[in-house]
């Protein structure tokens, strides 16, 4: 077996010169002056200056260098390079699936957190709607409405604790929110205690509580909702990008293997090293199948994102705006004649509900869902405004606080019930669809790693066949 030039090249190396060009130069590692110390013939500086560990290390390095010298040495180097590249490819393929899986799991967890935040916000505005509405009927509030208020506050504070447990990054904001909720609830209790004694200062406590809730607690909740929404979007994007691992590592590994094949063909006068080619084929197949699989997963995730997930968000936002509108309706009447600011706020909230519902209507995920009965409530609200504007405040209050058929509370109640059910359904569907999308990802990751190991075995086998010829 004749090997062309390499020995001539090694012979020309001056002891302190920079590293000469070598067949391995494709790696593009620049030679540094320090590499001069690595020459086998040179006196290692450690031998004179230090007889300890560096000296022994120098001996090991010298023997390593000896084993890599000459054509067999280069073959050993090729074997190591291809094995390492294919093993890394396996890891990268596994990582691609793991990253996609992790991103989807985290997207689902963040989306759960988002739903939790929106539930907190809903409970808080619901509690305020109850408190303000009960106030209109005086110190003797309806027991059902009081129970509803208490349930909403309880649910909100439970969810705050639960949410803090699920996302440490939300901790500080949730802590601040908890303070606001405690302050709100205590102001409402003070309003109640005063109302119960028929003292007008109760109304002021209620107004302050409601105003502070809007100025302090709702901005916090908005930040929490925005931050989690952002995190969900980030993870959805990460899930889509996960295949980059596979593609980049796959292409680099293919490059290494092809270069290895070319080098072998030149040095050994055999056109194809079959096992090494098989390794390249394994990498190629894994790359193509993996990329296809991940693209499919990513498209399923996108479907869920634009479908059920978007519908969940719309429904939740519609509910929040709806309860806000209901609070403002009561505040309009409490302000008695000076409620135009609250009526403007009602208009804005109602417009927000309508916008969310129309977005929901265009969402394919909402086909088959009955439209939410928001307009039933708005028509009752219009009647209330007409009565109040024509001077019949008592009539307006009766319509706003009654519970019988055709009252504001009845119409709003049916919107509340149906939107709550729809939200629960959509939220479950989101979780399900995301879960289905990631079902095969752990298996894919394992197969990717196995493909890497298989390719590494093939590469080792292929190069060692040539190496055998030197024994």
């Amino acid at each position, binding site marked *: 077996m004749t090997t062309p030039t390499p020995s001539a090249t*090694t012979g020309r190396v001056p002891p302190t010169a920079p*590293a*000469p060009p*070598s*067949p*391995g130069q494709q*790696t593009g590692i620049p*030679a540094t002056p320090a*590499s001069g110390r690595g*020459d*086998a013939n040179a006196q290692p500086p450690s031998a004179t200056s230090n007889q300890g560990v560096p000296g022994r290390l120098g001996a090991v*390095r010298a023997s390593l260098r000896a084993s890599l010298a000459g054509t067999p040495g*280069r073959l050993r*180097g090729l074997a*190591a*390079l291809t094995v*390492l*590249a294919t093993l*890394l490819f396996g*890891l*990268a393929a596994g990582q691609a699936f*793991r*990253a996609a899986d*992790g*991103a989807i799991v*985290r997207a689902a967890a963040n989306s759960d957190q988002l739903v939790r935040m929106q539930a907190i916000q809903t409970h808080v505005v619901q509690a305020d709607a109850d408190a303000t509405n009960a106030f209109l*009927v*005086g*110190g*003797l509030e309806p027991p059902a409405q009081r129970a509803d208020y208490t349930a909403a506050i309880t649910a909100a504070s439970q969810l705050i604790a639960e949410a803090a447990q699920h*996302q440490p*990054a*939300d901790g*500080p*904001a949730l802590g*601040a929110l908890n303070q606001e909720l405690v302050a709100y609830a205590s102001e409402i209790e003070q309003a109640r205690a005063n109302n119960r004694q*028929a*003292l*007008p*200062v109760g*109304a*002021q*406590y209620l107004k*302050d509580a409601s*105003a*502070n809730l809007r*100025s*302090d607690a709702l*901005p*916090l909740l908005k*930040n929490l909702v925005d*931050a989690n929404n952002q*995190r969900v979007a980030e993870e959805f994007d990460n899930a889509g990008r996960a295949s980059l*691992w596979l593609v980049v590592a796959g292409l680099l590994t293919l490059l290494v293997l092809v270069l290895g094949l070319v080098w072998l063909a030149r040095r050994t006068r055999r056109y194809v090293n079959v096992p090494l080619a098989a390794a390249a084929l394994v990498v190629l197949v894994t790359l193509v199948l993996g990329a296809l699989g991940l693209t499919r997963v990513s498209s399923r995730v996108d479907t869920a994102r634009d479908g059920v997930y978007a519908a969940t968000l719309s429904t939740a936002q519609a509910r929040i705006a709806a309860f806000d509108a209901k609070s403002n309706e009561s505040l309009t009447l409490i*302000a008695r*004649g*000076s409620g135009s600011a609250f009526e403007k706020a009602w208009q804005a909230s109602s417009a927000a509900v309508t916008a969310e519902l129309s977005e929901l209507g265009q969402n394919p995920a909402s086909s088959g869902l009955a439209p939410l009965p928001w307009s039933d409530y708005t028509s009752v609200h219009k009647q209330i405004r007409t009565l109040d504007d024509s*001077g019949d*405040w*008592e009539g307006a209050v009766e319509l706003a606080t009654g519970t019988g058929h055709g009252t504001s509370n009845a119409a709003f109640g049916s919107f509340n019930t149906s939107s709550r059910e729809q939200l629960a359904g959509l939220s479950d569907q989101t979780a399900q669809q995301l879960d289905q999308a990631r079902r095969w990802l752990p298996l894919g990751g394992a197969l990717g790693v196995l493909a890497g190991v298989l390719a590494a075995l093939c590469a080792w086998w292929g190069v060692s066949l040539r190496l055998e010829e030197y024994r």
Partner: protein
Amino acid sequence: MSRRRPRTRAVLAVLAASLLAAACSTAGVYESTPLPTHRSAPAPSTTASAPSPAPSGSDVVSANCLQSYAPPATLPAPGHMPSGSYMSTIARRGRLIAGVSADTLLLGSRNPVSGRIEGFDIDMLHAVSQALFNDPNRIEIRVITAAQRLPVLKDGSVDIVARNMTITCARWKEIAFSSEYYRSGQKVMVQLGEKTKSGAKITGIQDLVGKKVCAPNGSTSMDKLRTFKGLEPVGADTHTGCLVLFQQGKVDAITGDDTVLAGLAAQDPYAEVVQGPAFTAEPYGLGINQTHIDFVEFVNGVLATMRANGQWTKSYNTWLADALGKAPSPPVAVYGRTP
């Protein structure tokens, strides 16, 4: 060339390790959710109108411009308002639109049990409604804050304001007033047993140096408060807003008319109105749009009737006698203003 291999492998290993580390460490760790940068406290604002010393004692009549338009010799009968008059506009609408307070106990406050707004101020409106419609309850109530009193009259969204409003020369430039229907005076309310900084008993507003004192924005009480040096004025929307700040310990005292303070003290057994003479004179009048002079004359006629037939005294005894003692004789109406 043998030097290259270990280096390449080391580089690859480092690359792989860093990729894996990056993949494992950053996943699922997020920046903290931001807190809102601007967190608004229930701001006790101190943005009130510029200070202007309030008159007192015998100067009140001239300094406060108590002169109003003289009433007609006979009032038109209910339901027969002269055509073209502002009263006929109200009659056509079918109800009197009035700006009132819903939280000034005794003068105008919502009874939480009945839901109705009632008080001494409101009784004046019932009398006007009676004279217009022969029905005391044809009133559409608009609840307004102290600062809204002039704006709602000027923009015509209410016919009349009955909200413990002091007649002043400055306000006469913007609106018209009825004749005086009550003479109040400004006092201070403090925590029961409150002492001055040196531990002495508090006898008046001059003893509140270094303390926070609350008054409604846009009120004569706030104007007067700002003329006292060394105490810290704090504004709120209404006197009840001041009471909330007082109960929350955010202010040490409240200043306002004795009637209003009596209503606040009635809601809080741990508050007391500092006894002693009032440091201002606050003649109350009903506010009406400047252009509706015929309506001012009509209302003055209604008030004159109330003073004469004992209705004024009856109403005083209903609302104010418990807190302020037996009814004095009603304030004397001063006329003579010409358009």
